[in-house]
């Protein structure tokens, strides 16, 4: 009986081929759009998701714009629970054209040691450490511009004016899928030496300090101790976990993220209405058939199940194609926006959310037609013209 039910549902779904194809196409587009929008949202949070619990970021308590004296490093190191300290400056230069945006940081030598998720060969790392003009780029960034180790990379400074040139000495790969491979690093010392010459007031300062702690559960306590250390100084600090620091950036654009989330659900609502209309039309056309089935002795629950199965079948096909297309399209989509959303990976939960949405669409769309058809009086149904 169940096999017959499935077969009947399939035959009914495929009865109006054009309608079935158009409905499935709509579902594919909606499920795909939902998946991509969800991926954009997760890409937005990728930095925070990839953040380590064992790393703290210390910055000026006034604003990220204000830098901190480099001398703070020694006092930070003296705090109990601190394992390592490095520092970095946002460089914000332009590579050939302003459209070629990617994050550039001037970092101290110990910086890369604090990021074990950046996989870099020992030979390249050594080469970078000994070359004052040396640079390190992420794999995706290097691929985007066709850089190879040894290439000279000219970058025009904006915050730190002048024409800078770096020699690419190393390329790192991300250990995790959500590791950002679109960043460029060079020696803070190289930047600092230049600053000493052209703008001494800006020398010996760091934008942020990166602090590795021994136990992630002590993050709050250690942050408090560090900030207390610099309280009432000329440059008070704000120390927080790397995740909180990253989420601070996300919070600045939260309205956009919320808007994208809303649009993703609106897409589902729209296709739900389309699907409900399709199922209502199909059920209305078949009232006489359902009445005949009931006359033959089939129960109302059979009719309802037939309609729900047909809806589930259409949505399953749409969802399967939509989910399957999400991955290659996310890759294409990600390559267009890798400057702004460097980690554009479909989250593990996204296909499940897509499938769940498809099931919800199917059930809700079939609900009213199924109930109505199941309740139709046989004599009324037999009189109707499909």
């Amino acid at each position, binding site marked *: 009986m169940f096999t*017959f039910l499935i077969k*009947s549902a399939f035959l009914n779904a495929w009865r109006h081929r054009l309608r079935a194809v158009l409905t499935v196409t709509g579902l594919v587009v909606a499920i795909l759009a939902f998946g991509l929008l969800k991926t954009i949202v997760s890409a937005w949070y990728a930095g925070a998701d990839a953040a380590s619990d064992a790393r703290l970021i210390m910055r000026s308590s006034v604003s990220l714009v204000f830098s901190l004296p480099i001398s703070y490093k020694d006092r930070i190191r003296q705090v109990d629970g601190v394992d390592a300290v490095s520092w970095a400056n946002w460089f914000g230069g332009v590579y050939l054209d302003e459209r070629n945006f990617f994050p550039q940081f001037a970092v101290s030598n110990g910086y890369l040691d604090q990021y074990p998720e950046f996989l870099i060969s020992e030979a390249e790392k050594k080469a970078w450490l000994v070359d004052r003009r040396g640079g390190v780029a992420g794999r995706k960034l290097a691929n985007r511009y066709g850089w190879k180790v040894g290439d000279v990379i000219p970058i025009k400074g904006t915050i730190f004016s002048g024409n800078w040139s770096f020699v690419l000495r190393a390329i790192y790969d991300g250990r995790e899928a959500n590791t950002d491979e679109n960043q460029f690093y060079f020696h803070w010392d190289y930047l600092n030496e230049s600053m000493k010459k052209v703008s001494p007031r800006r020398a010996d300062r760091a934008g942020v300090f990166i602090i590795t702690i021994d136990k992630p559960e002590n993050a709050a306590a250690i942050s408090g101790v560090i900030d207390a250390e610099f309280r009432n100084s000329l440059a008070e600090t704000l120390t927080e976990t790397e995740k909180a620091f990253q989420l601070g950036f996300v919070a600045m654009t939260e309205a956009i993220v919320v808007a994208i989330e809303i649009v993703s659900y609106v897409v589902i609502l729209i296709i739900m209405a389309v699907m409900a209309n399709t199922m209502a039309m199909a059920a209305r056309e078949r009232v006489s058939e359902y009445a*005949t089935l*009931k006359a*033959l*002795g*089939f*129960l109302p629950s059979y009719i309802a199940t037939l309609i729900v199965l047909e809806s589930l079948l259409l949505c399953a096909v749409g969802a399967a194609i939509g989910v399957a297309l999400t991955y290659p399209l996310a890759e294409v989509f990600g390559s267009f926006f890798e400057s702004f959303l460097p980690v554009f990976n479909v989250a593990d939960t996204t296909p499940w959310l897509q499938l769940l949405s498809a099931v919800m669409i199917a059930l809700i769309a079939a609900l009213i037609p199924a109930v109505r058809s199941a309740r139709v009086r*046989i004599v009324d149904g037999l009189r109707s013209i499909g």
Partner: protein
Amino acid sequence: MAAVSLQSVSKCYYRGGHPIPVLADITFDVQRGDFLALMGPSGSGKSTLLNLIAGIDRPSAGQILVDGVDIAKLSERELARWRAGHVGFIFQFYNLMPVLTAFENVELPLMLTKLSRRERRQHAETALAMVGLSDRITHYPSELSGGQQQRVAIARALVTDPSLIVADEPTGDLDKVSATEVLSLLDQLNCELGKTIIMVTHDVRAAEVAHAMLHLDKGELFALESNGNTRSLKAENA
């Protein structure tokens, strides 16, 4: 015991809260193996009467006994089960499932039985053979003529071996040749298999195949015609 027995059956519909009587105080019996034609002008209530006997509608008052079962007292679920086992339906517009082949349409009522797939196949093939459509089992309704579709519908009606077959204008949508074939098949079912048949028709020629004709007018039994004799029931009831 009569195959079908109606006792003071009435039916009225409600429109805007007002009752519209369709059948009033109908009483008659149909004996086992009878072939009865229900006749009357449009709106006389003959199809409603057929629906009540077939258990696809419920009377407003009265008792309908089919093989001794008061079908008006059955729940929806019980009534569905009863229909599946006891009634074969033939409709004016065949009411075949367009997505199913002739074989699958005939097999459809057997899905509600406990027969195995093999047994279902045997039953359906036998029924199709009886209506002369063994060579059309893989055809879809759209690939069959009107007469052939009605023959598939007849095969579907008899495949479960029901005691009662109800036919609502079975020749109403057919040409003369096809109508003759269908009527001949119904006669065969009645004479050879002993099926009790109740048929609604406008067609006097179709009604002539039946053993008796029951005339309705404005929801009341008007006359019973049997073996060439007409008996006015209205006068009797009065």
